[in-house]
């Protein structure tokens, strides 16, 4: 009985060993390859190829179940592995094609971008050229217009200068007419202005005349008053002088005559004290009334003695009087001393009285 159980155990082990057959290398590789392929991009990019690999693997699996060690199982597994690898390769091909397509798309987009930029540059360049051409045309037109205007101006000038050309003549006539009208208007305006100015001037002149007349009247009045005062002062002065000397109006001026016997000692040129007193009074009178007038002091002698002696004596006496007047404050530059000698007597030298009158000093106050 134990022997029978042992035999059955061995038989079961043998059956189990036979059921758990060893997987061929080809099938293991196929399974691994398919698992790798199905986990990669092939499932999305090339599902049909992946499906073919799966079918091949199924056939290998089926053969493996039927006859694990047969060459058919190994060959089917081998083919299934190649199908899985091929699915991966085809997925890679699809991916590379996608990359190439994307690159080509970017290339075309870049070309479009470049084209657009080129067109913009071209448009800008054309715009600039157009603007430059427009500016050049404007300049040219301006030059032409200027030339035409110059030509017209020259033609007009030529026509005017030659007296030819109806238009120029009319223009000239119109210009002349306008100029005349303008001149007439200007003349009228000037006349009006002149009249107004004249009226204003007349008015001003009348006012000025009235003012001047008033001023002149006032001045005249003042002058008359001054003259009256001066005359009164002069009369007073002459009256005062008349007390100390003989005063007489002559063509050569006011002549103040001092008797020589009173002024000088005989044959002397020294002033006597009485003469100094009189001369002081004369000087004060002249200072007060005729300070700005020129004085001529003349010395005269009688006929006794030589002419040269009398001339020299009369000169010294005139100088003595001049010096005294200067000492009293009369301006020296206004006093001239002259020695006349005996040549201009005013009385007969035959008598002593006459000779006494001839010995004299005359102070002529020039007008």
């Amino acid at each position: 009985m134990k022997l029978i159980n042992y035999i059955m155990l061995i038989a079961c082990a043998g059956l189990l060993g036979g059921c758990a057959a060893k997987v061929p290398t080809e099938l293991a590789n196929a399974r691994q390859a398919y698992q790798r392929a199905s986990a990669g991009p092939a499932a999305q990019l090339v599902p049909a190829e992946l499906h073919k690999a799966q079918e091949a693997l199924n056939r290998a699996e089926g053969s493996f179940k039927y006859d694990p060690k047969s060459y058919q199982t190994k060959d089917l597994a081998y083919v299934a592995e190649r199908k899985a690898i091929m699915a991966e390769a085809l997925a890679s091909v699809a991916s590379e094609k996608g990359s190439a397509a994307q690159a080509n798309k970017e290339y075309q987009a870049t070309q479009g971008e470049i084209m657009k930029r080129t067109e913009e540059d071209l448009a800008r360049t054309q715009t600039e050229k157009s603007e430059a051409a427009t500016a050049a045309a404007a300049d040219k037109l301006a030059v032409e217009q200027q030339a035409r205007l110059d030509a017209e101006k020259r033609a007009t000038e030529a026509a005017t200068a030659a007296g030819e050309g109806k238009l120029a003549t009319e223009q000239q006539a119109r210009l002349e007419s306008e100029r005349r009208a303008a001149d007439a208007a200007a003349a009228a305006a000037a006349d009006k202005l002149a009249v107004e100015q004249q009226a204003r001037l007349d008015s001003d002149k009348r006012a000025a005349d009235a003012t001047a007349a008033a001023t002149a009247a006032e001045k005249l009045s003042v002058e008359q008053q001054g003259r009256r005062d001066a005359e009164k002062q002069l009369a007073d002065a002459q009256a005062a002088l008349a007390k100390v000397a003989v005063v007489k109006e002559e063509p050569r001026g006011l002549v103040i005559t001092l008797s020589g016997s009173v002024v000088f000692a005989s044959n002397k040129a020294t002033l006597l004290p009485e003469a100094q007193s009189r001369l002081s009074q004369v000087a004060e009178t002249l200072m007060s009334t005729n300070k700005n007038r020129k004085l001529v002091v003349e010395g005269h002698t009688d006929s006794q003695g030589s002419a040269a002696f009398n001339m020299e004596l009369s000169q010294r006496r005139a100088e003595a009087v001049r010096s005294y007047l200067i000492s009293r404050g009369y301006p020296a530059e206004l006093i001239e001393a002259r020695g006349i000698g005996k040549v201009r007597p005013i009385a007969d030298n035959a008598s002593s009285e006459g000779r006494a009158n001839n010995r004299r000093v005359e102070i002529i106050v020039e007008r």
Partner: protein
Amino acid sequence: MRHVSKIGIMVFAVAVVAAAIATGCKSAPLRTESATSGIRAAEEVGASKIPSASVYLQLAKEELEHARVLAAKGKKDEAASMLTRAEADAELAVTLSHEQTEKTEAGKAIERARQLRKDNQLPMERSNP
């Protein structure tokens, strides 16, 4: 006797026909066109110059040769099965050749787009639409 003769003739005929069919099947040539054309296609796409593909091209050639040897030994079924390996490897060699070509073309396209942007002084990174 006559009846036995007819049955015997019929059995003989059937046997002759069966023998003839069996002989014909045994002597049918190996169909290597598919494998051969696959190998030729791989060679035409330059698989021999592409490292990743040249291995499978070489395997296909060896498997084709192995199939012929098996066929010569009378192992027709085993030879035919071996041909499926050769066909699969030849087809894979073609596919890997195409993959390499596509990689090269994609690289050229990317470089061309990059160079175009560089030559025209444009930003190198483009925003995806």
